[in-house]
């Protein structure tokens, strides 16, 4: 048999080398035992499930490195997430179709510690893959989500919008007197929930008053926006919904249908760092109660909101 040409031998040697090295570098799908994920940050990922068995323990991989600030322990993480079952490929839930990013508290008490590993220390804008036994893929202390058997495995893809202090706000304390049909606003201390008072006649159209002009990135349609907000039915004191009463900032998609009536109109073109007072008449969106992502308000009631724009990110 004739000896192979030198070029062929070199090619064969490189192929063998690649076969040995690439899996170790994480370039070989089966060697890593993880699903293949396609798609851009901010869009619902396409996930191809492997045909081989899932790993016994949870595994995490940063698929796309973002360019934003690094998330830290103690922050709440605003993220999009897509959740599926490895064994069946069945899609469970996702925030992309809901057009409602979710807020996760990573203190080991709210969601599984596997979420900590996937989401802490990531740059905002990163896409992260998490594979986990179902008992450690969602809630803490080993409970599988509803309609998931305890022996299944979950595949989660996160798009990290950012990490935020639970009391993050666009601006500090201050008082803004009532004027021009707008109620007064008082923020007593850093991180305190704005309190609205001195309501006049009910609004007849959407009103927008910029309390603090932001100097950050502008808000654009279709992007994600992260805010603290509080909302009251016109003339009342107790908020019907408020991020201050929950975990901290929530993420939203800059689309009229993904937000409460009046919000999109009030936010478009504003900048990060803005504090905005919005008044909305009861007939602004007749019959509306909630968005697909369960962001809701009392039906056909006039309302007032204070929106603190904390961050924005393309999606």
């Amino acid at each position: 048999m004739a000896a192979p040409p030198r070029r062929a031998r070199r090619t064969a040697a490189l192929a063998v080398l690649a076969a040995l090295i690439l899996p170790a570098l994480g370039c070989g799908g089966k060697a890593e035992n993880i699903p293949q994920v396609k798609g851009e940050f901010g869009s619902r990922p396409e996930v191809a499930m492997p045909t081989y068995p899932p790993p016994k323990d949870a595994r995490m991989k940063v698929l796309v490195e973002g360019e934003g600030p690094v998330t830290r322990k103690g922050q709440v993480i605003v993220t999009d997430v897509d959740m599926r079952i490895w064994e069946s490929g069945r899609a469970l839930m996702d925030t992309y179709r809901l057009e409602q990013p979710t807020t996760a508290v990573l203190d080991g008490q709210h969601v599984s510690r596997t979420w900590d590993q996937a989401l802490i220390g990531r740059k905002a804008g990163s896409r992260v893959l998490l594979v986990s036994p179902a008992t450690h893929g969602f809630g803490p202390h080993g409970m599988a989500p509803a309609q998931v058997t305890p022996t299944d495995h979950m595949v989660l893809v996160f798009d990290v919008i950012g990490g935020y202090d639970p009391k993050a706000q666009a601006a500090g304390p201050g008082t803004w007197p009532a004027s021009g049909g707008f109620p007064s606003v008082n923020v007593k201390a850093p991180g305190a929930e704005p309190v609205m008072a001195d309501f006049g006649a009910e609004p007849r159209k959407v009103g927008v008053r910029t309390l603090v002009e932001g100097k950050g990135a502008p808000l654009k349609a279709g992007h994600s926006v992260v805010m603290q907000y509080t909302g009251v039915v016109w003339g009342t004191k107790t908020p019907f919904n408020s991020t201050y009463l929950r975990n901290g900032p929530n993420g939203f998609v800059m689309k009229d249908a993904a937000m409460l009536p009046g919000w999109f109109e009030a936010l478009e073109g504003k900048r990060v760092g803005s504090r905005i007072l919005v008044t909305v008449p009861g007939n602004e969106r007749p019959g509306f109660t909630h968005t697909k992502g369960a962001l809701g308000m009392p039906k056909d009631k006039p309302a007032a909101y204070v929106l603190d724009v904390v961050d924005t990110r393309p999606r």
Partner: protein
Amino acid sequence: MASWRISGSRALLTAGVALTAVFTATLPAQAAHAPGGVDDWGTVVDTKDCVQADAWLVRVKGLGKIIDTKLFQSHYPTTPQAPKQHAGGRELINLAPMGIGLGKVSALYSRAMGHAHPATTSGKGDVPARGEVYADAGGAAVDIGLPYIQNPAGGTQLSPFGVHVEGITVSAYSQPGKPVAFTGGAARGYISVAGTRIIDIPPIWAVNLGVRIPEDYTQAPLALATTNEQVTTDVKGNPTKGPNGAYKYDPKATSGYVNGIHASVLGTDVADVTVVHAAVLRDPKITDKFAVAPRAASDRAGVPARPLSKSCAPFAPPRTAAAGMKDTSSCW
């Protein structure tokens, strides 16, 4: 409004609602979660006893400042965090652990007993029965929201995700020589989103009844829920498995748990809630010797081998039964 619908084979889990005097955040000093960290069963404690029971009323995760919390947890053997039972009155109790509103409940109870079973007649004490183990939980009215946001105009809560059930009850019962038996159900109820009733819960719950919310498959699911979820486990609380290693209901199992409602929710904040839970563990290798062939022994007369009602716990309400509760010796 859509109707409740069976979602298929994957429906699973959950539970816990209700009750009384003190709510207990479960930080079990003696807890030894089942191997692998699976604690769907409940809090498995280190004990040399051959039976164990656990029950709670509401377990919430991922909600504001509310940590993973089991409200009104009962356990056998008792722990510093979980007494043998809780029992509440008819008045509404405002559940606001950690300062955050969770909802309102009334006439709630949870019980966990080992080497005993409840009396069949209201007003009588519990009946010692070596090797038996029993747990139940329930309530007259439960209104839970994630988070709970009261409607200023009255009516359905404004919570992004809300559960309202009336007459909810679950029980788990394991006797020597017999497999574990479960009951679960509610008189009526509904799930709401931001003040809108999305799904009515029918009075009779099929086992592992599941639903996606909304039910319209052209829309993305906001939440997944399961009612009357019944899961069999081994004697350590791990789900029973089939030959392929996946969970499989074992009709011969002597241990397991039942959950009234379990919901996993996305939306603005990730959350997971279970309403009413009852769980038992019984080691048949040790306890089956206590089986009594014809059930005519004096302390067992009248106790059904399986619960008679699909929708009601088979025994007396806990307050009346509590008076006769006794510690019984271990079977070791």
